[in-house]
């Protein structure tokens, strides 16, 4: 980190990002020594800027006015970075922003900030502690509730608690191996050995638990998607429209969204999901269609929830081509012979998948407003192919859709309640320590040399010292004396 940001020149960045189009963008410059130097860029006298007041000014390149901006000056040390900072609120056109940035960069007044450099300077200038930086980072970048709560949990200490637990278990583990070396005469060999094994098991459990928490598929939680897949003509698009009608999210009317596939936002229990209707799957020579299918497969990999849409009248399923399907919806349940067709699929279906059957009151194309017919949900246990009572009205259809939304809600809650660890540094450390612990657990029984075992454990300790700090020998010895009657 130190090497990366060694240059102490003023830095500039557009803090609101260049990618998104917004009315106002914020540009920040940090680390300049003298306000006089800013006079080149503005048409007001910068030396008279009142700290923490907004000033209207023009940004000018020589005589040419680039933009009208609101200018705020935060003098050191009471700024975010602890250095002199100015903030410009400029008009949010990316082109405009780029032009302003390059003006400041051109005369080498400042340089472009590396990612995280503002925060780094804040850390360096003692404005924030490292763990706060990490927490703040999560808060700022939170585009979902999960990350947001992770940020909070770092500040609040849920993770700290877990790390504290890890620390205590590591002290115990280390104590138990030291007990074996320095005090087995006092407590007896067998006692020392058993103690070591049980402590190793507990430590492994905790590091595995933390490791699990780093393994949660974050991308699927950060911007969760629900994807409809199935053969062409399975009824995906009709279903898509129907779901939209009942669950459409307010944020779905986003202008300027590129659509390589049809997608809209829906809201289920306060979480926004992107509902995606993919190109159908069939054997095709058409290049465009093949590409479309490839895209669908790619989306499928990252999806939070995968719904397989099946028209049982369309020939056999190949569930193998869709991995990890969450939910199956059978369409055309209104058609004659549906039950018999469904029976034929029994063998192909994966166990334990929840499904529902949907159909129309009258045959034909399924369109919004026409769906009037659904079956009751078919429990998650196994598809129930008993007599399917046709639902006679909209509300009963909604009920059957409810089982889908309920499934989505539960899955989201289950995943996010695992409190995934999103801070990269922690993830890395935990993974490393976990792998080392696991390999130690599988190999220590063949080690005859306790000193070597202790040295392996010390390496694990060095791995996790980034999370829990250094375990010093006095702590270990204290633990021994507290829990064992030492002294022959």
């Amino acid at each position, binding site marked *: 980190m130190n090497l990366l940001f060694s240059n102490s020149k003023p830095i500039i960045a557009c803090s609101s990002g260049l990618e998104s189009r917004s009315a106002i963008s914020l540009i920040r410059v940090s680390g300049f020594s003298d306000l006089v130097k800013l006079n080149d860029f503005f048409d007001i006298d910068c030396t008279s800027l009142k700290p923490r007041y907004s000033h209207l000014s023009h940004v000018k390149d020589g005589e040419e006015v680039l933009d009208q901006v609101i200018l705020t000056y935060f003098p050191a040390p009471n700024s975010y970075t602890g250095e002199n900072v100015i903030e410009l609120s400029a008009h949010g056109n990316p082109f405009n922003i780029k032009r302003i940035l390059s003006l400041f960069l051109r005369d080498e007044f400042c340089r472009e900030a590396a990612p995280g450099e503002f925060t780094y300077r804040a850390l360096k200038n003692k404005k924030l502690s490292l763990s706060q930086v990490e927490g703040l980072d999560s808060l700022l970048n939170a585009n979902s509730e999960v990350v947001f709560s992770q940020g909070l949990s770092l500040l609040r200490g849920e993770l700290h608690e877990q790390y504290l637990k890890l620390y205590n278990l590591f002290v115990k583990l280390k104590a138990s191996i030291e007990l074996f070396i320095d005090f087995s005469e006092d407590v007896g060999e067998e006692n020392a050995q058993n103690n070591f094994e049980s402590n190793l098991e507990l430590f492994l459990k905790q590091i595995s638990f933390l490791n699990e928490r780093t393994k949660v598929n974050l991308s699927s939680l950060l911007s969760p998607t629900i994807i409809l897949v199935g053969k062409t003509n399975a009824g995906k698009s009709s279903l898509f429209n129907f779901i939209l009608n009942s669950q459409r999210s307010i944020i779905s009317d986003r202008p300027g969204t590129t659509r390589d596939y049809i997608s809209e936002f829906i809201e289920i229990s306060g979480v926004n999901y992107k509902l995606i209707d993919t190109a159908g799957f069939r054997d095709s020579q058409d290049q465009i269609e093949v590409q479309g299918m490839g895209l669908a497969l790619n989306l499928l990999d990252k999806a939070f929830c995968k719904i397989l849409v099946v028209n049982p009248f369309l020939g056999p399923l190949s569930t193998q081509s869709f991995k990890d399907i969450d939910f199956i919806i059978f369409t055309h349940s209104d058609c004659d012979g549906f039950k018999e067709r469904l029976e034929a699929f029994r063998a192909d279906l994966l166990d334990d998948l929840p499904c529902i059957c949907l159909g129309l009151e009258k045959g034909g194309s399924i369109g919004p407003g026409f769906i009037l017919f659904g079956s009751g949900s078919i429990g998650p246990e196994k598809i129930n192919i008993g007599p399917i009572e046709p639902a006679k009205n909209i509300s009963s259809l909604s009920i059957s859709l409810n089982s889908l939304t309920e499934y989505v809600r539960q899955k989201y809650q289950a995943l996010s309640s695992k409190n995934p660890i999103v801070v990269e540094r922690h993830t890395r450390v935990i993974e490393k320590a976990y792998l080392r612990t696991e390999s130690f657990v599988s190999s220590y029984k063949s080690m005859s040399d306790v000193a070597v075992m202790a040295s392996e454990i010390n390496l694990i300790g060095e791995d996790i010292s980034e999370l829990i700090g250094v375990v010093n020998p006095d702590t270990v010895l204290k633990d021994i004396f507290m829990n064992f009657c*030492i002294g022959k």
Partner: protein
Amino acid sequence: MENNMEIKCYDLAVVGGGHAGLEAAWIAGELGLNVCLISSKNVPLGSTPCNPAIGGVGKGQVVREIDAMGGLMGRLADLSAIQYRTLNESKGYAVQSTRVQVDKDEYSKNAEKFINNHINITVLRRKVERIDKNEEGLFRFFDKSQEQIIISKKLILTTGTFLGGTLHRGKNKEKGGRVDCESSRDLTELFSKVKTLDVKFKTGTPPRLDRKTIDFSKMTPQESDPKAKNFHCLHKPSERALPQVKCYLTRTCEETLSIIRENKELSPLFNGQITGVGPRYCPSIEDKAFKYPDRNTHHVFIEPEGLRTDSVYPNGVSTCLPEEIQEEFIKTISGLENVEFLVHGYAVEYDVVDVTTLDNSLQSMDIEGLYFAGQINGTSGYEEAAGQGLVAGLNASLAILGREALAFERTDSYIGVMVEDLISNKRDEPYRLFTARSENRLYIREDNVINRMSPYRKLLNLKSEVDRYHKDYLYEYILLDKLCDQFQYRPSSSQKEYFLKKGYGSLLENVILSEVLKRADLDPIKVLEDELLNFGLVFKKEVIASVAISKKYEGYIKRANVETEKVKRLNGRKIDWEKLSNSKNISNECRMRIKEVRPQNFGQLKNIEGIRPATLAFSAGNLI
């Protein structure tokens, strides 16, 4: 001494003739200095007032380190040993340590012989009442009648538990550092300037029992190990100076503990009479009874105190209960039903110097030329005391000679570990060495003590038999080390068959001897011995062992060293403790600790107890 007689001026005065004092005086004498060892009249030199044993896990390494530096302890232990053991024998070479039971009288007799025969050492059996430092910076020693006894340039104080000592046995309290000995309270003139800890430390000892009244048939005997190696490098490894005896193992029972538990209010340790902090690693039987209520039996080792005495030491039942209760509970122990007491157990509280005021040569930072070593520094154990005596003695001598100070690194000796641990942290209980305290345990072993210590010994510029031994040893070591790295086994069918026969494993390509020594499940010493025999080469047994073990651990040590190096580099980085202790980014608690310890570098900061990871992360981002 008459007034008109010239008062003798010594280079170095050592007050106290215990294990620290002996080593300090001895090494100074070896370095050619004029030494005066001042000791009480009725206390023998090098006495072992607690358990009659030298060495142990970690401690055995210290004894060998002292020996390799030319110290006394290893020789004295060998000459008076009546039982040998190798501890941790089944747990790998790195943690194996030697321990011997010694004949106490013999140990002191040998100590007196060595010291008295040393041409540069004068032993003065006087009680010093007062010491001061005159304008020329010389230490002046006075007796009770305020008469000046001697003068010295440097002073090492090794007064053990005698500084402000109080003995406790039941309700009885008396001044003293040891049973039947006066305490030496009155070094106050000097000590008024020396910072002692606010709390006293406490230690204790069990009763001594009459061997003739013990029924050994009820106990498990433990024989002396004929393979265990002597400490002194010039002694033949398995030669024994004295006949060897057995120790015995017995145990306390529920009745023992219930007697103690019923008499809680009579125990000075639990009724408030003793406030000093005792070592938790060496609890009294009272501690065991009250602090571990679930345990209803404890080991008791019956250790003879010598060949010609009937006194035995019941290890594990240190106590300061009233005499009649001691007798009552001891008699519940199997085999001790009819035992007779020679001395009753007692506890002693004593003053301890604030060791954070000492530098790494154990010299006071407040009073130049004054050194402290041994139990007065808050350590426990004869070996720890001797190790410090060596450090203080060496450095006082080098200072007098105008030579550079010598500091043992914690990466290559337990003495180094101990000294650094001592001076860098305020201790809240007596300090004892454990191998857990070393980051480099795989390297700080008994077998390679010459490799580790000879660079230090060389700095002393002495030419003795020890130095010749070091030279021969190292010559052979380097030769054998090279041989192991260069000798190759080719995968011929006859070699393959040989490997199979010897159980060395597979031979698929060229393999050097060093690699064979590293193979799992092989005893490297046995392999190397066999191969050398095969080659018809003769090396010292201790060289073979050390090379073989070093090869075995090479990979592990290297890997640990990569980490240690990283840590070491960071540890050496300077920090500004004043700034940190005022920083808003550090928790209040951590700031207080930083203020108290005043760490100079990152390593010291890290070792402060209770420092939080966030503080370290923050400090790491703010190195000077």
